[in-house]
């Protein structure tokens, strides 16, 4: 008997303190597997955001750094420019990346910095207890839109892939999800592509991953998965927006 699926070496032994059914764990595991499969674990520096996955610095079995809220792309720029031999990934939530960190992600993308961003869109501020995120859907309830997101008052959601796709800089932009095993596999492919592009020194890749937050969505994990399938993925189209390495061919 051969162990075909098991906790990858890219994760530490520390048990993850996410809520049951949280998408962060799945995405962590995917990245961890790739660190091993691409043989980059020993030259990778991961960036944990401020958000539920602030604890990512305890979970990934590689060098990790934990910077200020939203500034992952700036820190990644510093790391990578100072030492271009590193493989750098910035793991960020939707509050981190699309609210407070808007300027940093837009400019890192415009500069086509050579690192990989994993953007976890769970349409909510998980860590702080379920407030409105830039990606919270219209009419969706959050603790700061208790009557649902009224876009007239609280504004329209931001679609990050579409936003960054208007720039010249980025090489790769893809939106996937982890709400089913099939999509987990696709997400893995996408993130792999992101890392490969970095390894080939081609530049900036961002993979947006729709991810369940059962706790703050006030749904069971299974309802959360269904909600991504039926609602969230309709609003955030799951597709490859750009792969400039392909166009080059």
């Amino acid at each position, binding site marked *: 008997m051969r162990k075909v*699926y098991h906790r990858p070496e890219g994760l530490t032994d520390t048990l*993850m303190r*996410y809520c049951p059914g949280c998408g962060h764990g799945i995405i962590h595991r995917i990245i961890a597997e790739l660190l091993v499969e691409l043989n980059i674990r020993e030259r990778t520096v991961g960036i944990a955001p401020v958000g539920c996955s602030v604890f990512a610095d305890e979970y990934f079995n590689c060098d990790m750094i934990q910077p200020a809220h939203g500034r992952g792309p700036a820190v990644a720029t510093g790391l990578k420019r100072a030492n271009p031999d590193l493989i750098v990934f910035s793991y960020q939530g939707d509050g981190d990346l699309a609210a407070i960190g808007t300027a940093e992600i837009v400019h890192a993308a415009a500069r086509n910095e050579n690192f990989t961003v994993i953007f976890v869109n769970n349409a909510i501020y998980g860590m702080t207890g379920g407030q409105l995120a830039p990606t919270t859907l219209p009419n969706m309830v959050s603790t700061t839109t208790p009557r649902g997101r009224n876009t007239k008052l609280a504004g329209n959601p931001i679609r990050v892939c579409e936003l960054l796709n208007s720039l010249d800089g980025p090489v790769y932009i893809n939106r996937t999800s982890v709400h089913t*095993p099939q999509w987990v596999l696709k997400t893995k492919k996408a993130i792999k592509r992101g890392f490969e592009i970095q390894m080939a020194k081609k530049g900036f890749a961002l993979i947006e991953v729709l991810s369940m937050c059962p706790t703050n969505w006030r749904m069971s*994990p299974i309802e959360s998965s269904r909600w991504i399938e039926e609602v969230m993925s309709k609003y955030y189209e799951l597709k490859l927006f750009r792969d400039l390495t392909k166009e080059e061919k």
Partner: protein
Amino acid sequence: MPKNRTEVLVDVCKGCGLCVEFCPKKIIRLSDDINSSGYHPAEIIDQEKCIGCGFCYLICPEPAMVIYREER
């Protein structure tokens, strides 16, 4: 002897039920027991039927699943 084996790491599992939902063979359920963190962990109810597809592992956030396949 089964072709594949799926093992649940009982104390890692948080009883989220995602594996239960996505197992194509519907051979996983949540146990009545409580693990050390206070969750009802997943358990395999019919190991024989497991096709080793790995869906339960793929969707598990912890991951609390370990899957063995028979060597060929």
